């Protein structure tokens, strides 16, 4: 029987292993609808305020039975999402939200979505550049349209009051997740990579209120401060897979910072809790750090990454690149140069969500951790 300390982690891990089961349980208890959110940057507060459960789908929740008619040039995130939908998985999801993350997501939504699937869909096109003239006005229009759509799908209009409450719930959740990240930076090894992964992923499936409680419990534990770690790693990329995190843990590496989309990018930045709520969501989005899918305005993604790297106290940078992901690939050579210039050990590890890469990931991560020891 897990101890009280381990219980939040076990629960989160269980949710990660079977997210569809967790969604199904929530639906049967609440009697409400779930919305599948394709990564990344869906303003989930709106779905929450409409009484729906926003569920981020990463494409590795089911092992794809076959390619499911997905072309080979599609990354395993989008490929996994599409093949799951095409093969009738994710029946717990009542509606879909597709943001304009990248060429692959935009086109997959248009072309590969099964035509006989009549669940409501919303293509959330957001400005690719925060400082483009007219970007706030355009995004406000999209947020309002999304708000209306969510109200229609759920049958519950998204009132200003409900949205304000949801913004508070999300801000609280982000604050607590930030505490977890701070703890990992201040006390390397206080949470393992697998724990970070499980807590980050579980929050994309569970109602945020429940997730906040789990995080608080996890943070309240009084575990012994671990001894010195072999390496302090900063992770960047769209996501880490379970095997990658296990390999980092096994190699004795501590994650002290990350800008993963399935991690910091999802949880960072709070929305203003007063004033016009739609505008507040627009501002939150436009204030984001530059990332691989958002055009860098002023400061580049690499500059920002290096700043965050320094703040975290990391001693090496690990880039996890989903194969076939163009947005993430573009920065890799310059990122590698920057690291080389600063004497920061850097590794770009290609990952595929559906390939069995456990052994090769382990070998490369072990070698990476040994660098400069």
């Amino acid at each position, binding site marked *: 029987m897990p101890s009280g300390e381990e219980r939040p982690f076990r629960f989160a891990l269980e949710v990660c292993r079977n997210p569809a089961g967790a969604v199904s349980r929530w639906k049967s208890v609440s009697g409400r609808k779930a919305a599948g959110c394709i990564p990344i940057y869906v303003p989930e507060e709106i779905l929450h305020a409409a009484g729906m459960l926003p569920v981020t789908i990463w494409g590795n929740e089911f092992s794809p039975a076959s390619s499911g008619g997905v072309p080979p*040039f599609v990354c395993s995130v989008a490929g996994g999402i599409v093949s799951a939908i095409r093969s009738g998985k994710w029946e717990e999801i009542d509606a879909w939200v597709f943001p304009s993350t990248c060429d692959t997501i935009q086109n997959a939504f248009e072309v590969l979505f099964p035509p006989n699937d009549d669940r409501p869909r919303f293509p959330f*096109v957001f*400005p*690719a550049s925060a400082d*483009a*003239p*007219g970007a706030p006005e355009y995004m406000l229009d999209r947020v309002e349209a999304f708000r209306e759509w969510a109200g229609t799908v759920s049958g519950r209009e998204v009132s200003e009051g409900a949205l304000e409450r949801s913004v508070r719930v999300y801000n609280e959740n982000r604050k607590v997740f930030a505490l977890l990240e701070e703890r990992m930076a201040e006390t390397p090894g206080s949470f393992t990579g697998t724990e970070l992964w499980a807590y980050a992923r579980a929050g994309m499936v569970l109602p945020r209120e429940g997730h906040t409680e789990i995080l608080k419990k996890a943070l309240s534990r009084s575990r012994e401060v671990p001894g010195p770690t072999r390496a302090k790693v900063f992770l960047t990329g769209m996501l880490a897979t379970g095997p990658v995190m296990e390999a980092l843990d096994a190699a004795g590496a501590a994650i002290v910072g990350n800008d993963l989309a399935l991690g910091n990018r999802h949880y960072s930045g709070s929305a203003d809790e007063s004033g016009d709520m739609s505008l507040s969501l627009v501002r939150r989005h436009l204030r984001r750090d530059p990332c691989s899918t958002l055009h860098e305005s002023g400061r580049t993604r690499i500059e920002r990454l290096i700043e965050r790297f320094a703040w975290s106290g990391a001693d090496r940078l690990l880039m996890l690149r989903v194969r076939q992901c163009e*947005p993430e690939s573009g920065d890799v050579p310059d990122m590698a140069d920057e690291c080389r210039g600063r004497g920061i050990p850097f590794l770009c590890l290609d990952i595929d969500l559906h390939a069995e890469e456990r052994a090769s990931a382990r070998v490369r991560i072990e070698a990476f951790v040994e660098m400069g020891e």
Partner: protein
Amino acid sequence: MTRPKRLEAAAGMKELMLRHFQAGWLAREEGRKVAFVTSGAPVEFLHAMDVVPVYPENHGAVCGVARAGGRLCQAAEERGYSRDLCSYWKIDWGARTRPSESPIGGLPNPDFLLCANNICRTVVKWYEGLSRFYRVPLLLLDLPFRHAEEEPAAREYVRDQFRNLPGELARLTGRMWSEERFRESVDLSREASVLWQECIEANSTRPAPTTAVDQFLLMGPIVTMRGTREAVEFYRGLTHEIRERVRRGEGAVEGEKTRLLWDNLPVWHQLRPVSDFLADHGTALVGATYTNAWTERAGESPDVSEGLADAYARVWLNMGLGHRCKPYSFGQEEIAARLKSEGIPCILMDGDMADERDFAEGGWRTRLEAFVERLDNEHHRGMRG
């Protein structure tokens, strides 16, 4: 072997394109600025400010035709760009570090960059990298993806950005914005697009006066010199030559039996062999979905695909898969399945547009041979029936 009849205009185009590339190199001496620009960007704004536009994508295609793409991509991969990236992007990087491998010696350095993400979002990452490499400003035009009906807010967003461009360009060039030159350039663009559309549509006659391969090779000026008088003059000459062919009932392919449409980007390094092979079998590539992208015109925006669908309603379909261009390659299998269900033969061939390393030449020939034979048989059955 029977080859498609060459167009006289082709020789003139080489000359024209050479002058275009030279203009980039000479710009500085002439006190003009150079901007790298994406193929779907509104270049008329640059012409208004006497900026010389340079097209890295077009350079990628030129390297593809010369079969230099593989070596240049290789250089980019050695630098850390992954193999699965757009080959135009990688060629651009490769040519920056190994310009001697490019058939035109690479590209001149830009003073600034103008990137429009209406063709894809890949170009944003590409141009961000260019901006870091050359340490020059990047103007991004964020043109939102249109899923269904156009949203008025999206149009307004685009307008806001367009309204902002003259000021930005004035800042970058130190010149006064010239509305007059801008309008003149828009008019010239429109004129060239009308002529280009006529060239394409002429192929709805039988026999087709040109092939889609001609179109691929002759689209250089409409892509890179839109908005200039030279482009208008060039397409005027080409239209004249095509009209003459139509008048004489002269086809590009001797004894045209079968007509094919090409979907997706051209596989630049295989254009001639494919075209010669087909001509030798009495098969004409009469159209391509790619070339009509440059028939869009300001203020009119006709539904070109509708028009084309009418013109080519009864042709055979042929498709290429440009694997490194994801936006263009999406939906190929769905289109093929649909066509097959409607009894229209089609073949899917796999190959990168500019990286000849990703093309199995032998396999391509065998498959196309079988396809053409099948069409031939059906043609004869049809003649007997």
